[in-house]
């Protein structure tokens, strides 16, 4: 008849626990040194540092489980129970990653095509600062006149082909939007700076019949109707006062990537 056994079959002594703690700290220090750029080891190692780091972590993991969690000295059944969960998590995780990195689908390259390229920040931070608008300066108040701008989407993706358009205050601006997509419907909406997402959200609620724009939205300077695949359309309006505005497509979901700046100066 088996009874609940006493817990102290074998306990490491305090000295051994301290030793284990020191080992854990030491491994962590080694890991840190491996990636600390002041020491410079990482450059020599290159990508070899990854298996090294993983290996060191596995050692730490093993030590904590076996000694602190006492698995080494306890009944094997606990080890089996825990390893079952751990192994399953690891295998399924690896399978998932394999399925994703092996995918040749559009989604993985979407990020690469659209991401803002990384620039070394430390050196160029100053240069990256948004340039302040030309101080006073070019007050060459040209007479406002009609101007036409043509803008398009990039194939079937959710992006305009231009990220900036400009005009002068008072110009009669006609924007012709050509939609080359085979499946997507778009519009183009001129809005106050920083409001593109809010306008898009309200536009979604307003619905398709309102061209995905809330009627009477005070943040909207002008908007086109919905332009279907292969179509083109126009919107004509008077350029507002100097400043920065935005243009955006408010078809639900498009506003996250389909927008740009409209600078009036």
């Amino acid at each position, binding site marked *: 008849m088996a009874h609940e056994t006493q817990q102290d079959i074998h306990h490491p002594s305090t000295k051994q626990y301290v030793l284990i703690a020191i080992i854990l700290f030491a491994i962590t220090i080694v890991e840190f040194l491996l990636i600390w750029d002041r020491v410079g080891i990482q450059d020599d190692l290159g990508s070899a540092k990854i298996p090294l780091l993983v290996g060191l972590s596995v050692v730490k993991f093993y030590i904590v489980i076996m000694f602190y969690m006492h698995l080494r000295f306890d009944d094997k059944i606990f080890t089996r129970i825990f390893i079952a969960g751990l192994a399953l998590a690891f295998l399924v995780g690896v399978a998932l990653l394999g399925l994703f*990195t092996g995918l040749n689908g559009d989604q993985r390259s979407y990020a690469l095509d659209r991401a*803002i390229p990384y620039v070394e920040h430390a050196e160029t931070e100053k240069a990256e600062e948004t340039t302040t608008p030309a101080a006073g300066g070019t007050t060459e108040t040209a007479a406002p006149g009609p101007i036409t701008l043509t803008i398009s989407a990039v194939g079937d993706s959710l992006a305009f082909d231009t990220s900036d358009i400009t005009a002068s205050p008072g110009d009669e601006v006609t924007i012709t939007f050509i939609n080359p997509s085979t499946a997507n419907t778009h519009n183009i909406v001129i809005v106050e700076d920083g409001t593109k997402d809010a306008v898009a959200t309200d536009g979604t609620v307003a619905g398709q019949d309102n061209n995905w724009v809330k009627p009477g939205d005070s943040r909207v300077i002008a908007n086109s109707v919905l332009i279907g695949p292969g179509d083109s359309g126009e919107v004509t309006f008077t350029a507002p006062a100097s400043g920065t505005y935005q243009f955006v497509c408010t078809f639900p979901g498009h506003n996250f990537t389909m927008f740009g700046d409209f600078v009036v100066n």
Partner: protein
Amino acid sequence: MAHAVEPEYTTTGLSHRKMLMWVFLGSDCLFFGALIATYMVYRGQSLVGPYPIDIISVPVTTISTFVLLMSSFAMVQALAATNADNKRGIVGWLLATAFLGAIFIGFQVFEFNSFKNEGLTLGGNLFGASFFTLTGFHGAHVTLGIIWLLAMAIMAAKGRVGPKTALDVELLGLYWHFVDIVWIVIFTLLYLIGGFDAGPLVPPGG
């Protein structure tokens, strides 16, 4: 008065509650595994910054990792004190574990705040979403552990924790160490390795 647990008959001779805790920890591996898988799948897929290299500070997080490792040591000492029926030791080491855990959480809060100030948000990009979700749930686990530690310390101060109830401390220890080893995995993947990710990664094969 400590409610002495009579040895009950079990098929394996092992405690029900200890077995429950190990099965639960096995299950929790899948929980963190899925969160880690999300992070790993989305490495290099953020469309906009800030990217990990802009944000992650390995030196600071190495310190908080030390703190958590120290807390595991304190937990082990608390269990030893329990087996030795050393009431002051039990209370002291339990409070030390909780205190170190709280410092770890403090580091996390400080980190989250400074990241937010540098522009990393839940909704800003995938790195923000997966980072905050994974480390947030880990932090929640730590916090629950701290509450459990404090409750246990209070009971110990009342003299209700001792060799006969050592299992209670052992179970708490198992949970606490588990949370520690999950952090070991997170620290390695998100900080030591992933902390240098910059911008979109080129998938294998170009």
